[in-house]
């Protein structure tokens, strides 16, 4: 951090000290149990925000599908770490799932081979036809198999259940699954203009959520899964404060490790190259850098962090509910954290995540209170009959505020609280 100038260190110190005061006030006023929960969740958001800030801040990639990667990570981690469902393992289910995986790989090979058929002397028209046939056939085979598999599993055992592996394994797999999805999305979109990645990530997030909501055989769908296992003792077999404090410790350590690794990468040649690409794509390309490859690396890395952080977040919530994944809470809130904190600055992302999450959590009761106040006085003074769904409408106010914050920050404070330290190189 030798490049840092004195005023910017002061800024860091002041902001984080202010944050500490805010946290202390909340601990004092809201109680330890509540505050610990908030801090754990904020820490998970910080990990997710680190993933987003490297995508946006280092590489200028606009990912509007953070929620999808969180959901995919959470679902994978749940499947890895949730206790096994013996009924499933005693039924025909495992065979069907195995066959499905075989067919999936086969389809992948078929589509890949069709796409590469031009290398083996196939004309463009025939190639297009081959690709179309391969995709159509794969789709029919897979969807037919999936229908049957879903029916069988749901009849025999309700759902697949987990693998019963340690939670930490689940978290790592969560990152890996999010990374694999990101690789496919990035491979398709990163050569094209930036808007396309935004559109595609928006789409993939909606589809992941739809799939998780409807795939009863895999994840119990909207029936939800609980209790999610913890890597430390759960409140069920101990006291709340101890359990949450241990979980917070795990989250904090993880966050710090990720932060340190990212800082290293930022100052390493790899990070310098990323920034060079972001700041001047043409020049970087002229220097012979493979721009799209670098972008793919960072996109995948960012999404791994999102999947990982998402899994930690949902495990802590103790209930896996696919309807609970929301664009607002899991995509746009993270965006506000990143751009408000200072995009491209890892400390900024952490500060933004903690600060924004605290405000976010506090704003819920405040908005409800404000609205009931408006309702009461509106009725008393103007004879206004407030609509019965006033409370749910109060929540919409937060949607508006998130949107307003994004637009205002972009326009008036594009640097955020902690601007990126432009390292000289």
């Amino acid at each position, binding site marked *: 951090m030798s490049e840092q100038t004195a005023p910017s260190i002061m800024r860091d110190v002041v902001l984080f000290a202010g944050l500490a005061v805010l946290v202390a006030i909340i601990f004092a006023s809201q109680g330890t149990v509540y505050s610990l929960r908030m801090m754990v969740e904020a820490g998970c958001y910080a990990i997710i925000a680190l993933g987003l800030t490297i995508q946006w801040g280092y590489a200028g990639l606009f990912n*509007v599908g953070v929620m999808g990667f969180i959901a995919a990570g959470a679902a994978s981690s749940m499947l890895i770490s949730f206790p096994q469902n013996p009924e499933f393992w005693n039924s025909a289910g495992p065979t069907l799932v195995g066959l499905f995986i075989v067919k999936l790989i086969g389809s992948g090979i078929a589509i890949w081979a069709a796409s590469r058929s031009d290398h083996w002397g196939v004309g463009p028209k025939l190639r297009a036809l081959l690709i179309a046939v391969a995709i159509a056939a794969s789709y029919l085979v897979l969807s037919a198999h999936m229908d049957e598999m879903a029916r069988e599993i749901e009849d025999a055992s309700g759902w697949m259940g987990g693998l019963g592996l340690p939670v930490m394994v689940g978290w790592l797999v969560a990152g890996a699954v999010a990374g694999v999805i990101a690789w496919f999305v990035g491979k398709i979109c990163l050569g094209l203009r930036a808007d396309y990645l935004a559109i595609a990530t928006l789409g993939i997030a909606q589809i992941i959520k739809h799939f998780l909501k409807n795939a009863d055989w895999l994840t119990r769908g909207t029936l939800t899964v609980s209790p999610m296992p913890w890597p430390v003792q759960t409140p069920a077999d101990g006291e709340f404060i101890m359990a949450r404090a241990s979980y917070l410790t795990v989250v904090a350590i993880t966050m710090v490790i990720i932060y340190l690794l990212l800082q290293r990468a930022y100052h390493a040649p790899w990070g310098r190259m990323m920034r060079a690409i972001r700041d001047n794509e043409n020049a970087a390309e002229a220097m012979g850098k493979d721009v799209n490859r670098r972008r793919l690396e960072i996109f995948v890395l960012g999404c791994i962090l999102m999947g990982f952080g998402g899994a930690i977040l949902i495990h802590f919530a103790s209930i896996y509910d696919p309807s609970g994944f929301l664009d607002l809470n899991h995509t746009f809130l993270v965006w506000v954290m990143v751009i408000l904190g200072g995009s491209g600055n890892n400390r900024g992302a952490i500060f933004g995540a903690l600060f924004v999450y605290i405000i976010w959590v506090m704003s819920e009761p405040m908005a409800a209170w404000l609205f009931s106040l408006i309702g009461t006085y509106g009725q008393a003074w103007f004879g206004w009959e407030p609509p019965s769904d006033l409370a749910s409408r109060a929540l919409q106010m937060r949607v508006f505020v998130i949107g307003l914050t994004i637009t205002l920050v972009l326009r008036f404070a594009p640097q955020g609280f902690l601007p990126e330290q432009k390292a000289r190189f």
Partner: protein
Amino acid sequence: MNEVVFFINKGVTAGLIIGSIYALGAIGVTMIFGILRFAHFAHGDMMTLGAFMTLILTAALASLGIVWPVPLAFIAMFPAMAITAFLAIGIDRAFYRPLRMAGARPVVIVMASVGVTLMLQGLIRLFAGVRGRDMFLEAPKEIFRIPFPGASRPVIITEPQVLLIAFTIVAVVALHWFLTRSRLGKAMRAVSDNPELAQITGINTNHVVWATWIIGGALACAAGTLLSMDVTLKPDLSFNILLPIFAATIVGGIGQPYGAIAGGFLVGFCETLAVFNWSILLRPIQHHLWFELPASMALVPTQYKLMVPFLILIIVLIYRPTGIFKGRVLA
């Protein structure tokens, strides 16, 4: 013959309806993309906003006791289109133009449009709640049953569907006339083709930007209203309608209004036919088939409808990123 009627009602009509909606939305998105060079994420909520404007005006008209041979909402739609167009220009001035002027990267403006969409979403639901609303305040919608030769069931089409199809045709013809005959329309195509040269030539970019938002906003309002008239006004459309509209835009080639129209219908029909239950159509020839027809035989289960535009989008991005018509990838 009842099978054919079923196909017309559930396949052809439904495809035409949703295709028209997508086309009307995609025209605006593609023109904004072509001229201002960013993907306008707030378009879905702009449609909802327009529909709400119509609803407010319809309520006002209904309270005056006005009766008309066409639904009041359709009458109210035209002033609502003007209001939405005006609001669209206002949104541009407040949120996008300052960034443009400051030379922000397009992707930053895309993000601003995400911010705008959240603001619109929040405001609309704050004032109108989240439940669906009926646009027919004065009378139930009329349903036309057209007998089909040789079938016991009629072909069904509702009044708002007729209005939608008629409006789409008129709008497309008018747009074509505007873009190929009028000075401003040609200037819009010129800016979309080559903004720098347009500037050198002395084309007034402000006028072109206004025209873009007027067309985009007005058509978004019309699409939102007509969709709400066909079903109900749902305030939570947003991203669910945005994805197919983007798919239609990219399929048609960015900056290509005709491509957007074709793309809209393509996506609309694919979506409809993918969830269409083909087993009913095949039932009469069951005895020629080697397999037992299941009760429901759709390519995609209805709950995965959103997969269809997404897959179209992905396939186009992989194999034809310039769109299936003569298009181009904007650098």
